[in-house]
């Protein structure tokens, strides 16, 4: 628990915190890559009138990003750093392949070469906090050992002392402050950084990192917002929407890519469809949806984004077959179709309540094949036949619910 509470900062740094918050509000102001441009406010009235007839002009600024489809990692790679910055800053899409989430590899390299203490990226902030925390634990253990020694000495003289009576002050997390700057933290920081100080400019490496979009993220950007084009890795041509729709489903079959795309290979229990329905639903409700593998769940829901708040909810996707018979022919390894055991539920819930997240089981019903024809799967129209229900899980502690 103390690991996730922000470290207490001095008054000087507090000011920095609020200015950083303003900065974040500015950088991450847009929840989607699309921007509704404000400059045309002068024509507001005329546009409203036109809007009523569905004729509003080009008020939406669309960044039109580009990504390469990678079948082996089942992801879409955005290699252009301008595009990846846009996708990260406007809606927190994707993950840097060499970073925790935001692609910061290049910034870390530059920081390391300049030995800079400011402009720290999130990985470095975390590493510093952990180093401080480790130092605090060492200090505390030392103080406790000292107190025990004093008590032991007093015991030999025939007195039994409590820790207060020994006079040793044991540091507490609320008041402890690092006495000296914590040892430099970044693991990939070269030790000879100071030497290279002069030739920083020549030394900046090429950015070898790219932004990796999950298939759900890519399809959301592509289909609903039309701000991404996906390039086929073999032909280097942009894939058509139909082609992508087919490929994203086929890729989950065990025999891909030798599989032919025909109607018999389309199924409502395709993992891509199930995950996409969930991803789309919570995105459409305004949540920032990110992967939750770190906490033993499928997705995490952030209110405005990871730079503003910790994730509030942790989603486990539980597919439910409308018709149990469809399950017998399922070629996929679908997770969580059977209910959890109580042990597993406790395990997942313990992990998530430890980090102050509320566990949510998201049940997605898979349309029965008897009800919906397979032909529906040829287009995204099939998505409206799924349905989503949530169960919010928390421990109930009777001793604390009495009043």
């Amino acid at each position, binding site marked *: 628990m103390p690991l996730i509470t922000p470290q207490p900062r001095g008054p000087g740094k507090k000011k920095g915190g609020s200015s950083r918050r303003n900065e974040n509000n500015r950088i991450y102001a847009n929840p989607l890559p699309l921007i509704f441009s404000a400059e045309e406010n002068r024509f507001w009235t005329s546009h409203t009138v036109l809007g009523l007839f569905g004729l509003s002009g080009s008020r939406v600024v669309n960044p039109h990003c580009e990504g390469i489809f990678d079948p082996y990692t089942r992801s879409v790679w955005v290699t252009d750093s301008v595009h990846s910055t846009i996708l990260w800053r406007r809606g927190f899409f994707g993950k840097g392949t060499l970073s925790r989430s935001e692609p910061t590899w290049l910034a870390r390299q530059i920081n390391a070469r300049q030995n800079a203490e400011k402009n720290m990226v999130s990985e470095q902030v975390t590493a510093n906090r952990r180093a401080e925390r480790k130092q605090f634990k060492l200090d505390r253990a030392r103080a*406790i050992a000292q*107190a025990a020694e004093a008590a*032991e000495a007093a015991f030999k003289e025939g007195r039994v002392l409590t820790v207060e009576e020994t006079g040793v002050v044991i540091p507490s997390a609320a008041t402890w402050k690092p006495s000296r700057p914590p040892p430099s933290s970044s693991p990939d920081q070269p030790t000879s950084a100071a030497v290279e100080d002069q030739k920083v400019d020549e030394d900046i490496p090429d950015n070898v990192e790219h932004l990796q979009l999950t298939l759900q993220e890519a399809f959301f950007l592509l289909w609903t917002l039309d701000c991404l084009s996906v390039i086929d890795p073999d032909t280097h041509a942009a894939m058509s*929407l139909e082609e992508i729709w087919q490929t994203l489903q086929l890729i989950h079959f065990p025999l891909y890519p030798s599989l032919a795309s025909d109607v018999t290979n389309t199924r409502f229990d395709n993992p891509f469809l199930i995950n996409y329905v969930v991803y789309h*639903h919570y995105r459409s409700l305004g949540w920032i949806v990110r992967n939750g593998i770190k906490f033993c769940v499928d997705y995490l829901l952030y209110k405005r984004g990871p730079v503003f708040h910790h994730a509030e909810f942790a989603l486990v996707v539980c597919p439910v077959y409308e018709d149990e018979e469809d399950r017998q022919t399922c070629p996929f390894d679908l997770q969580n179709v059977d*209910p959890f055991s109580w042990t597993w539920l406790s395990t997942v819930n313990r992990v998530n309540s430890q980090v102050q997240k509320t566990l949510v089981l998201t049940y997605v019903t898979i*349309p029965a094949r008897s009800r919906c024809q397979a032909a529906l799967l040829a287009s995204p129209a099939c998505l*409206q036949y799924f*349905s989503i229900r949530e169960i*919010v899980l928390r421990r109930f502690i009777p001793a604390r619910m009495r009043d």
Partner: protein
Amino acid sequence: MDDLLEQPNKLPNFPLSTEDARDEDQSSDEEDGGLDWTKLPSASVNIARPVIPKRGEKDYEPKAGGGSGLQLHVLDRARTAMFNTLRATRGVNNKSMSYAIWYPQLARAHVTVAKGIHFSSMGHSVQRPIADADVKLQKRLELLPEEALYLLERGALWCWQDTNEGSWPINMSDIDARGPPMSVQQAYACMIGKEDLTLEEYQVFAYLKRLGYVVTRAEAPSLSYPVHPPLTKVKFQKSFSQTFFTLWSAVVRKFFRLFSGINWWKPFRIHHYTNYSSLFESLRFVPSGHTTPLQVRTTRNLDSSSPRSPYHIFYHLYKPSTPFRKTAPPNPDFYVVVVNARSSLMPSLRELAALYDKLPETPSPLPRQRQAPTTSQNAPAAPSALAEQHPISIFQRISRLIFPPKAPSIPLPPSRKPHPFAALKAGKKMVVIAAVDSGNISFFRFGQGAFDEWPMI
């Protein structure tokens, strides 16, 4: 317990830093750690009623290399204190004892002498025929098996096994002639398994009773068992403007679908929208929420040979602060399902849906800013909602139709809207499931999520 205390790190010793104390506050159960027996005053050891001691602090670690005189000393002291406490004989006060007779055929304990406050929330009166007069019925106080077992185990009840069926009223003078009362072991053997009571259900009952809750059966085991009045389905009246708005938007949407003939390759016409919230709203096409018809085929339920689902509401739970009248129980604060964690999996969506069907909607949580609520905390939103439903004249009604009130149904200032996270976490309906794993009870609350009603943008 003995084994626990023999481990050196369980020693009660130094209180650690405040941070550790805070961590311990947040650890869930008081019973998690061992007890600090040294906290017992030595005088209390021999008194009739042993006091349950409080838990002490753990030592940070055993001294390196062993052989700390102080640690050994503290360990010995703690162990002696424990043995002394356990040595005390358990006694009861003769004046506070109740008397009962257990009828195995009826699965009820007939209370002949009722003493103490337990009977304000336990036991129910039943009319039974008297032996010598065939027609005449007389009321008597009876306990369910779990209630009798709980009182007996607590040392508040002496219970005799019935020897000659049906002869009552009993002459109190011949109680001594019945021999010794049932032992706790005997009571466990006789009463578990009666009236659908499993061991798990008794363990949950006893745990909640010890915490001061009032626990009643959800399904009346007999006609004379008092149950709370059937739930009146409170339909939340939507205001006229709201209804109109939903209808209108539905019509508009239908209209657009009809004439634009939705192209599923390009369903969202981005250029129609002027801001993010309208764009997000247009993306919400996936059916969601628990009111969506659940089209799951119930193949298993049709098969009559399959065992009954373990998921049914077994107990009604009332907080200690809820005013409770035994003859007219109010609506419960919580609904409890008890299952064996080893033999059952978590409930499936279908089982949960069946549970929620029987439950009322819980009022949405209070906004966080409000301090010192004046109403009782149990049903915070209910009183204000009821107060609003006073009769209104026809003129008022008409004027409301024409000029819909700004704040629908409940006139709340905007600042008192509940926090969306609190509302999301509480859910619309809530059932508590107690999973009992060989005596260890973990309670989970299963809230019916309503994320679709609280969009973030």
